């Protein structure tokens, strides 16, 4: 059983009468790349701020490294964060900014600064001051700070903002590498669902401060799978035809009047013909591909 790195129970945060978080339950295990998915203002950043100690919860509990409440100074050194926009001193270079934080953290080996800059592709900035950086460069430096000192947990709030497609791809591989090679647990939020899908193994869907669903990648893959939807009043007979006549077992009975068939080689036309020939009455057959966005929308609409 993997260790729990972050856990929240009924975590709530209110700003006056406005409830930014409403009884959020989430669990992040060691080694997870945990994706937070939600619209603007859903509460993703608020969760991250509470966990990292930048905001104070109103109700509920949270644990970091199995310890209740805000992490101690020692445990905070095991966390790397990039919350909202990256923030550094404009009159200092990339190296100087990281050196400032390296001194703060008591990092004796200055080679770690070079390693962090190399990881995010900022080794050649030279004497360029932070205020002269592009948005993408600023974002990279924020990520470099988050990975400085080899943390056990990295919290990244929309880290790919401002990055070009190649930069996004490189960063995706960096996150996977950090996770697989160093065992770092990553909590990451993004609007770009496809990017999060490509990198995370567990997801939390959140809307208006409430959790819609906590789901693994495997479950999400099933939910978003291409399938043929069969609407029939007689799902039992349809299931028999699928198994005995067509030899298909990769299907699910979604409700009393609907089946989803995931067999890739089967076409809707072929299926309709077979069911009709075997006396199964059908009211509709169509192909359905649930994109991540559609899946998210369906969650939002259901709630």
């Amino acid at each position, binding site marked *: 059983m993997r260790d729990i790195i972050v856990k929240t129970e009924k975590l709530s945060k209110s700003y006056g009468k406005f409830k930014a978080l409403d009884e959020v339950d989430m669990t992040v295990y060691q080694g997870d790349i945990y994706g937070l998915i939600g619209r603007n203002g859903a509460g993703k950043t608020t969760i991250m701020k509470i966990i*990292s100690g*930048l905001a104070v919860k109103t109700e509920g509990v949270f644990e970091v490294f199995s310890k209740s409440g805000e992490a101690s100074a020692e445990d905070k050194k095991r966390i790397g964060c990039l919350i909202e926009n990256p923030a550094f001193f404009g009159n200092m270079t990339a190296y100087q900014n990281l050196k400032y934080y390296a001194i703060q953290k008591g990092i004796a080996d200055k080679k770690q600064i070079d390693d962090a800059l190399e990881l995010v592709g900022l080794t050649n900035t030279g004497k360029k001051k932070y205020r002269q950086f592009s948005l993408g460069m600023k974002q990279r430096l924020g990520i470099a700070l988050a990975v400085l000192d080899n943390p056990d947990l990295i919290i990244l709030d929309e880290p790919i903002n401002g990055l070009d497609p190649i930069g996004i791809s490189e960063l995706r591989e960096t996150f996977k590498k950090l996770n697989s090679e160093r065992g770092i647990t990553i909590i990451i939020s993004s609007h770009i669902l496809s990017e999060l899908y490509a990198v995370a193994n567990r997801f939390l869907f959140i809307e208006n401060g409430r959790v819609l669903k906590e789901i693994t990648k495997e479950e999400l893959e099933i939910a978003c799978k291409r399938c043929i939807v069969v609407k029939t009043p007689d799902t039992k007979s349809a299931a028999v035809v699928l198994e005995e006549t067509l030899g298909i077992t990769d299907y699910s009975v979604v409700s009393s009047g609907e089946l989803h068939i995931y067999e890739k080689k089967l076409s809707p036309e072929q299926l309709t013909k077979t069911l009709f020939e075997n006396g199964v009455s059908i009211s509709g057959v169509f192909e359905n591909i649930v994109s991540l966005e559609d899946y998210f929308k369906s969650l939002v609409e259901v709630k």
Partner: protein
Amino acid sequence: MLNIIRADFYRIFRSKSIYIILILMLLIDISSIILDSSAMCIGVAYHNDSGIMMTSDANALTSNGNLYYFFTFVVVGILISDFTNKTIKNTLSSNCTRICYFLSKTFSVYIAATILFSAHNAFFYILNYFVNGSKHAMDAGEYAQIAILQMSVLFGMTGFMLMIGFLTKNGTAFNTLTLSLPLTYALILMFLYDYFPEIIENYLLKYEMHTTIGSLVYNSDHTYKLTVVTIYLSATVVLPILGYLNFRKSEIK
């Protein structure tokens, strides 16, 4: 905590601001000595309005209240810049707790203020000693004693700035409140003087920063000195804590 203080001094000495401040202070000191000398014939000490002989360095001590404005730069450089640049979230999220942050910044400010104050006064004394000679300089021990007493006053005012810094967490609000304070306070006292002359004179004006700094130079009343030190050292400790009480629960944006 020590690491955060070290990092602050690393950053301060990387910036141009500290060097501009130091050069400015040196230029003011040098011009003060030279102008005093040239105006009163070289090396001649003069008397103040009360008939007390004032050397250049004693005169400079009475002007130490102006270091208040330099100390605002110290607080801005060490604390307020963290809020305006939003770099505080980097420190708080992955390095230290809020109490550690508060103590580190407070100590950093007081250490920097001590260095600045000591450097200014030591430089002035030494330069005056060499330019005008020992006969026109105060006794070193007496000079140091007065300077140390004055330091408690300036620390008290620095405590006020720290309180404002942790309360407002905003550069504009901080600058508005701290830079306008001495003038605003003086205007209020002037306005209220007609109505409450005794209270103003015996309490508010008597222990006002500039008045106190000046009085400590030639006022030999030990009770007065003790009262001043007690008031301002209390402010040094209490006021930042008041700022922290608000800071510890506030959201970092």
